[in-house]
């Protein structure tokens, strides 16, 4: 099914380029996250899709229809704003059915529909309340209900959960995901919380300044980041400067490491980056020499309860290893150890 397509979309604000030549092909019915650091242009990209900004160049295509010039109010989208943007002069049910009123639905029908929508977001019985009388989480639900009232083709959310406390946020994440699965509506959520993006979405779009770095399912992005930026941004990764030796070997300092592959077209001597997740770094007792191992020293141990983090120094390199408490290596600061980077866990990307 055709979904949403961005064709080389750019947006400039005067001298500043907020979005640079973004190409995206997002399938219909999926839950998609835009993930990236603050100021990278996620909101701008979302607003371009909503028609709240006009692209400086490029096209926005929805279900095979070019909607670049279509004004927002004719796009049939539902959007939840960062500030929620609930209308303070209307009560809950009038907020929710604002769009239906614009379309001329009679009051009695609207009232009934508001009840259904509130039921759907699991907040029944607050129809008559003022917005001021709701808690943060309740407002969130009202905003979601309002955005879904018109059964939009696209459901857009700009960091909708960032104002909630940690517990409520997790609850809402689960609920949002369940709701989306039930309705099958194409949903795009903007977030800079990578955990949120990873746990909720079918597809993650990772952005760095103005550009899309990688698009893919969460696991793929996590397992094989396309660039050093993605590797660094998605979870904490160890990033090691490496040189290409041959298609299955790289050199780090003096030692050679076998890796599953190197980026296509990389030739011997090219500068690359070897990335490896902290949880894939194994720490063994000193002396067990073998391939893909480095001698090192523990510089710091951080026990965070659910896991144990070892900060390691191997000559010039600094590495972090994370392990579950039950697999905790017998190591104290100052101990000499052997650090193993298993070949199958190494991902080599261009620098």
């Amino acid at each position: 099914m055709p979904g949403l397509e961005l064709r080389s979309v750019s947006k400039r604000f005067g001298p500043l380029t907020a979005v640079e030549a973004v190409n995206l092909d997002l399938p219909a019915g999926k839950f998609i996250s835009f993930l990236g650091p603050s100021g990278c242009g996620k909101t701008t990209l979302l607003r371009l899709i909503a028609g709240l900004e006009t692209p400086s160049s490029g096209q926005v295509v929805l279900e095979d229809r070019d909607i670049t010039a279509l004004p927002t109010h004719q796009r049939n989208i539902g959007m939840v704003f960062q500030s929620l943007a609930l209308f303070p002069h209307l009560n809950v049910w009038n907020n929710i059915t604002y769009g239906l009123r614009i379309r001329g639905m009679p009051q009695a029908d609207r009232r009934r529909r508001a009840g259904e929508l509130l039921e759907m977001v699991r907040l029944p019985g607050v129809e008559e309340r003022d917005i001021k009388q709701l808690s943060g989480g309740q407002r969130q639900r009202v905003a979601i209900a309002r955005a879904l009232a018109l059964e939009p083709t696209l459901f857009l959310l700009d960091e909708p959960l960032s104002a909630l406390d940690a517990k409520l946020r997790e609850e809402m994440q689960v609920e949002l995901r369940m709701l989306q699965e039930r309705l099958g509506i194409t949903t795009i959520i903007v977030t800079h919380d990578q955990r949120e993006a990873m746990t909720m979405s079918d597809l993650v779009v990772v952005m760095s300044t103005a550009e899309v770095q990688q698009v893919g399912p969460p696991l793929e992005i996590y397992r094989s980041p396309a660039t050093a930026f993605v590797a660094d941004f998605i979870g904490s990764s160890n990033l090691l400067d490496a040189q290409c030796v041959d298609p299955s070997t790289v050199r780090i300092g003096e030692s050679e490491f076998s890796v599953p592959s190197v980026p296509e077209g990389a030739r011997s001597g090219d500068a690359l980056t070897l990335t490896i997740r902290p949880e894939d770094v194994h720490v063994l007792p000193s002396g067990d020499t073998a391939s893909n191992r480095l001698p090192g020293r523990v510089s710091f141990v951080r026990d965070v309860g659910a896991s144990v983090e070892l900060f390691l120094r191997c000559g010039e390199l600094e590495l972090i290893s994370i392990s579950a408490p039950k697999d905790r290596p017998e190591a104290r600061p100052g101990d000499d150890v052997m650090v193993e980077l298993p070949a199958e866990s190494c991902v080599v990307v261009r620098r």
Partner: protein
Amino acid sequence: MSAHSRPRGLVPHLPFAWPALMLGCFFLVPFAIMVVVSFFHRPESGVGTYEVGFEFTHYLRFFSPLFARHILITIEFAAVAALLSVLVGFPFTYFLSRFRRRPQVLALVFILCVLSLSEVIVAYSWSVLLSRSAGISNFFVWLGLLAKPASWTPGYGAVLFGLTYFNLPFAVLIMYPQCTRLDTEITEAARTLGASPLRTFFTVVVPMLWPTIMTAAIVLFVFTMGAFVTPQWLGRPQHWMFAILISDQALTRGNLPFASALSMFFMAITLALVALTVRLGRRKIER
């Protein structure tokens, strides 16, 4: 510092003393004098004098068709001019508050300049603009809309134009702060819900800023009630508003007790109308 601590002792009260003294002596005392004098006796011959006394004679003089007519025309002008200036001023202010910074600052400087113009200058420039020899009718003749230049002053329309013009910059400045505070995400939300810009303006912007609009209308109404120069120059004697009568009694005829009584009456009417408007405005919101 706790936000709501109480001032204790003499020293913390020092910043209170001077303003209280000045406003008390030179703003409240004059009012007290006016209230008292409005009951005083005016000797037959004395211009600008009064004798201590207590009589309602001055208040009883209101019950004449002349005063009724003037108070009615005053209210009419004030209400219509306030309404017109809010009607034009509100959309203008709202759009202005959405301008980018540079044009916004320029527009504000312009508005401030127009605002600071003396009522005398405004009335004068309108009398020029509406005159036969130098006025806008010449321009209409040039455009072919009019056969020959016309004089549109003095007249009802001229007074109304002048008053509205005088009010408009005030309307903008009163409504400006709240207009800037309306979050753009609110109107954008309405747009995503399918409301056209015009619909958004009437279903979101106007209702949300309704209290501000009401405030501006009331302030301007009170303001215009006191108009003095504009009706005198741009209107005929039947268009003279109440301030002219008060000034006439106080300065030309030297009847201070009667002028005071007129002022009290005038103030009472103004306050009553304001109270009424506030009530009606509130009911509209609740609906």
